[in-house]
């Protein structure tokens, strides 16, 4: 071969490679090829760092829409929307008192699409809180917290708390009257353990409340230090934390054997076809994971891949569908209603009524009797109680079915009636007749901290739930009663706090009855 022809062929090869480069870059990134066979569909998932949080194959029961109602994915979708719009808002937002207010005003009135983006951010944040709560309700009523999913339930509790934290820290940033006074109240709730330490006379030695407040505000008033701290929490610390928790949460679903499903899920889907043979007929203590067959005690042990379908496309398309619906809802709400912006924060004149975000108004209602119990004591008891559920309910009956377990749907209904009735009765009593301070003005605060509508409700729910444990001889029935009562209490208190409380936190049937001031 002559030199001439060799250089010709090298040159030709160079240009051929150049034209093939885009295709080869694509192939280098996505090695498994187009997801057209079961094998390449598997590779599509486990060769992708983001997708491999998912299982390669999904059980058909998990894809029924009544299994999850898509609530977990809707929470994630709302988070992603809030993430994107939040980053956009950071282009103009300036976290400094008064300047912050003006920058939000600029975003609202001057910045192209600013008002729309801020509306989407606000609505997606609210939607996320709602979806996370409903997702927890779904997981509870389908007993999805049971072994081996206890740890993921705890991660879920963490996600709920961080979600509320994200939403609450975002509330201060506009630096308007609403924000300023909600955060003043919030910071003083953080300080409210003083109510207890004062009553015990140990505040000068152990001042947990004062320390919490000072760490949150960086000062003793809500000012520039508080704003920069809330900003830091809102745009950096909490998003990082929630990202980590979300990754663990999703990955654990896969590791816990997919979503929970009833023991007879396979029969209920459809009888096995005669030409399909189970991979394991003797259910050996081995697991079929990816391609290896190994010993272990993970939840996939002894299970074959029957009745599963490739996650690509079945699961992913369902998830994308929920993402699109969530986006659509956010856009529609943002077109329908603007995010509020009140007057510039004024440290001398409180907003009247000064209301927290809606999901805290139930707590605000309790706080209007005792700051410590309503703001710290009862929420802590609620979070600890929720976290303990999977470790106290060790039963298996009814797992994966809506309202499964002894008592079932009827028990949930009766608990709801009891919870609604008790909460309404105590609220009506307290609104009509007032509380201890009005009858005996000189009673020690400790008495009110211990005996107030919140603690009476908690005790009433607990007693009812213990009775249910005895009546049905089942911890699940007790948990069902307690959870249902707590949810009803949350709803009743939130509705009263949102719609029936006006100036001076007085009770009003309608805002039209509010006194003019």
């Amino acid at each position, binding site marked *: 071969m002559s030199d001439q022809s060799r250089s010709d062929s090298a040159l030709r090869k160079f240009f051929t490679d150049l034209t093939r480069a885009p295709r080869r870059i694509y192939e280098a990134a996505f090695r498994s090829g187009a997801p057209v066979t079961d094998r390449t569909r598997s590779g599509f998932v486990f060769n992708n760092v983001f997708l491999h949080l998912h299982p390669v194959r999904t059980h058909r029961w998990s894809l029924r829409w009544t299994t999850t109602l898509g609530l977990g994915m809707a929470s994630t979708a709302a988070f992603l929307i809030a993430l994107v719009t939040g980053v956009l808002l950071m282009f103009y937002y300036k976290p400094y008192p008064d300047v912050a207010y003006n920058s939000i005003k600029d975003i609202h009135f001057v910045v192209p699409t600013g008002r729309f983006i801020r509306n989407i951010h606000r609505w997606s944040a609210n939607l996320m809180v709602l979806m996370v709560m409903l997702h927890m309700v779904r997981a509870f009523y389908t007993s999805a917290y049971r072994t081996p999913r206890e740890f993921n339930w705890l991660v879920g509790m963490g996600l709920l708390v961080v979600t509320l934290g994200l939403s609450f820290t975002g509330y201060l940033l506009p630096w308007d009257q609403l924000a300023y006074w909600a955060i003043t109240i919030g910071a003083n709730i953080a300080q409210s353990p003083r109510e207890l330490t004062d009553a015990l006379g140990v505040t000068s030695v152990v001042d947990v409340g004062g320390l919490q407040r*000072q760490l949150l505000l960086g000062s003793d*008033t809500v000012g520039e230090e508080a704003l920069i701290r809330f900003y830091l929490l809102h745009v950096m610390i909490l998003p990082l934390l929630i990202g980590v928790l979300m990754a663990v949460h999703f990955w654990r679903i896969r590791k816990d054997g997919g979503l929970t499903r009833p023991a007879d899920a396979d029969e209920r889907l459809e009888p096995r076809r005669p030409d399909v043979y189970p991979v394991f007929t003797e259910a050996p203590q081995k697991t079929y994971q990816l391609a290896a067959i190994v010993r272990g005690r993970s939840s996939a042990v002894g299970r074959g891949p029957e009745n599963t379908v490739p996650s690509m496309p079945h699961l992913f398309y369902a998830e994308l569908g929920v993402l699109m619906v969530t986006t659509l809802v956010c856009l529609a709400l943002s077109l329908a209603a603007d995010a509020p912006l009140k007057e510039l924060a004024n440290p001398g004149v409180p907003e009247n009524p000064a209301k927290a975000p809606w999901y805290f108004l139930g707590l605000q209602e309790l706080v209007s009797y005792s700051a410590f119990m309503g703001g710290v004591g009862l929420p802590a008891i609620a979070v600890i109680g929720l976290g303990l559920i999977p470790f106290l309910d060790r039963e298996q009956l009814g797992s994966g079915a809506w309202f499964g377990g002894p008592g079932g749907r009827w028990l949930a209904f009766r608990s709801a009636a009891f919870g609604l009735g008790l909460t309404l009765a105590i609220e009506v009593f307290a609104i009509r007749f007032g509380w201890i301070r009005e009858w005996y003005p000189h009673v020690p605060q400790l008495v009110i901290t211990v005996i107030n509508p919140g603690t009476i409700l908690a005790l009433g729910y607990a007693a009812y739930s213990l009775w249910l444990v005895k009546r049905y001889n089942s911890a699940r029935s007790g948990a069902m009663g307690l959870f249902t009562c707590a949810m009803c209490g949350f709803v009743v208190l939130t509705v009263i706090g949102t719609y029936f409380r006006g100036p001076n936190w007085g009770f009003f049937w309608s805002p039209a009855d509010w006194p003019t001031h």
Partner: protein
Amino acid sequence: MRQTTATPSSRLDPEPVARRDFLGIASLASMLSAMLLAGIGMLRLPKAAVLPSASKKFSVQLPESLPLGSPYVPPGRNVAVFRDAKGVYAMSLVCTHLGCIVKQAPDGFECPCHGSRFAPDGSVSKGPAPKSLPCLRITAAGDKFIVDEEVSVPADTRVQA
């Protein structure tokens, strides 16, 4: 009968804690304690040593025309200064419940946030507030008064101009 003769130990016999295990555990423990200390050190940073808020001491000049028993609120301060037959006193207007600013009402003070009510002397008459509105230390300085928001005094303390 138990064997009492001690077997001579050999360099090749397994040790109770293997040397490598010991070194591994020791280095892990030293790393964990170093990280713990570093963590505590980092947590020290957000706890401010100097609070950036304005001075809690300020002077007020009471208007000549201030009627007995009605409040004078110095601009930018959440404090009311009163003059009555016995002398001058200052009262905090920050609700002891959750820190909202109380307003004067016909029968004392009321808080807009959670409906606490206080008698004219600052004691709680209704609602969730756990403590009375504190009276603040006030001292006469010429024709002015100095109020210190950080020091509370008994409710019946009065100063003369």
